[in-house]
């Protein structure tokens, strides 16, 4: 009986101690150890016929991935990761068509893309920049995933060059643009002839990626997909959402906490008294 009570006392106090932080600081600790990752399929001739199964750290993510498919972001533990692609139906033990290993930094976002011809499939991992754009601007970057293009320059039609000397399978830096619809032209570096052109529409606060795709029978094109959307113009500083009417001042601590303390004290006291009596007897 005494053993049971002592055990109960220990458990009760342990639960209280564990429970207290929830009373005192209920805000969850930041899960600062997570990264975001998504997958993209940009291999022009590995489509429809070959449907892929993609896994990340031995978790199957997608049983079917088609050409020009871009997934939503997935939250994963930061740290080392492995990405594998296998033909659909292949056993998990079989040698993957692609294996990419890397390290994901906490709080960062990544895209892992399958690029190249089916016979020379490769996986590339690149970082997606989710930091806010300049006020009133949008961010755009390009990824050269077209398999048979020379080194290219990417420019706004009749205007500014956004990136020069871009080659497969590299992403460019993000450029800041005002909201609008842009005609984008892709030229061989240093040449005049336009190899690929397309329209890219952006709104302020958004982050957009544009893949340069094609080859192996697929048309050359610019394929835009969103990374994220932010606030057009964010407010500054903290937010004044309290007037202090419930802030603890010189007043007594809140009733539940007081009761709790009293109950624990009383319980422990009574037990101590009863134990002492037993010893005397």
């Amino acid at each position, binding site marked *: *009986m005494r053993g*049971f009570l002592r055990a109960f*006392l220990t458990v*009760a106090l342990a639960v*209280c101690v564990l*429970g207290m932080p*929830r*009373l005192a600081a*209920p*805000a*969850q*600790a*930041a899960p600062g150890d*997570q990264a*975001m990752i*998504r*997958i993209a399929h940009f291999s022009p001739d590995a489509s429809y016929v070959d449907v892929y199964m993609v*896994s990340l750290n031995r978790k*199957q*993510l*997608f*049983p*079917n991935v*088609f050409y020009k498919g*871009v*997934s*939503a*972001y*997935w939250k994963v533990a930061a740290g080392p990761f492995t990405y594998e692609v296998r033909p659909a139906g292949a056993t998990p*033990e079989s040698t993957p068509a692609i294996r990419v290993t890397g390290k994901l930094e906490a709080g960062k*976002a990544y895209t892992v893309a399958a690029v190249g011809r089916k016979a020379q499939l490769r996986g590339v991992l690149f970082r997606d920049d989710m*930091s*806010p754009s300049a006020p009133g601007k949008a961010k755009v970057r390009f990824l050269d995933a077209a398999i048979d293009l020379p080194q290219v320059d990417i420019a706004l039609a009749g205007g500014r060059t956004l990136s020069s000397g871009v080659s497969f399978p590299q992403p460019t830096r993000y450029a800041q643009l005002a909201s609008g619809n842009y005609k984008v032209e892709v030229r061989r570096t240093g040449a005049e002839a336009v190899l690929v052109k397309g329209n890219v529409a952006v709104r302020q*606060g958004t982050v957009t990626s544009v893949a340069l795709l094609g080859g192996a029978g697929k048309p050359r094109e610019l394929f835009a997909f969103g990374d*994220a*959307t*932010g*606030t*057009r*113009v*964010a*407010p500054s*500083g*903290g*937010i*004044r*959402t*309290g*007037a*202090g*009417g*419930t*802030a603890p001042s010189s007043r007594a601590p809140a009733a539940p906490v007081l*009761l709790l303390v009293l109950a*624990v004290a009383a*319980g422990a*006291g*009574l*037990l101590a*008294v009863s134990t002492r009596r037993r010893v005397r007897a």
Partner: protein
Amino acid sequence: MAAARRTPAPPPVRPGRVLKALGALALLLALGSCAVPSAQPSGPGAGAIAPGPAPAGPADPAGPLPGVDVPATPPEAPGFEVADAPRQVTVPGPASPPVRLTIPAIRVATSLVRLGRERDGSMQVPVDFARAGWFAEGPTPGEVGPAVVAGHVDSRTGPAVFFRLRELRPGDTVQVERADGARLRFVVEQARSFPKATFPTAEVFGPAPWAALRLVTCGGDFDRARGSYRDNLVVFARLASVSR
């Protein structure tokens, strides 16, 4: 209780036993009061991706983020753990302002006012302590991006609309009704406190890759000299499903 079962015969009542029983009872009460704040249903762990059990809103086919074609029940391959495939839930069609916010777990039900920025660039807050407001210069709930809703924790005299926001846990549901009648179910991913002096504007208002909702109120110590709380509490939630 287990103790009664272990005792072979009812022994004579002794004062010590009565005291012990009283002590145990007091502890039981203490235990009970400890457990109350934790009694909220909590869902998946902090930050866990929270696709609803039955996502009603399919990924917007015309949306800016083309989704990978994911069957409802992926075939299970031997040797693989099938993960929750990331799913982009958005509200199809044009954006529409939010009009109502309901958080069953903490008994919040409020209409939403529109908020902008003050002259000093800071975010406006609702004049009415009993109502929350949506930052109308950001995305609407249901669009990709961070929709921000702010509400007071207290007035000068007592609790205000977001007094119990601190009790929200990952997995809790937050409902938003929009002017177009769409009902959005968000799931809490995490709650964090930040000193106002170093408020992480980029994290709260910056680009988000999915339809996000951020609920903001005050927390921490109250600075009587400034008449302001030192911290902001931010609850991060993600759209899980949409119904009409």
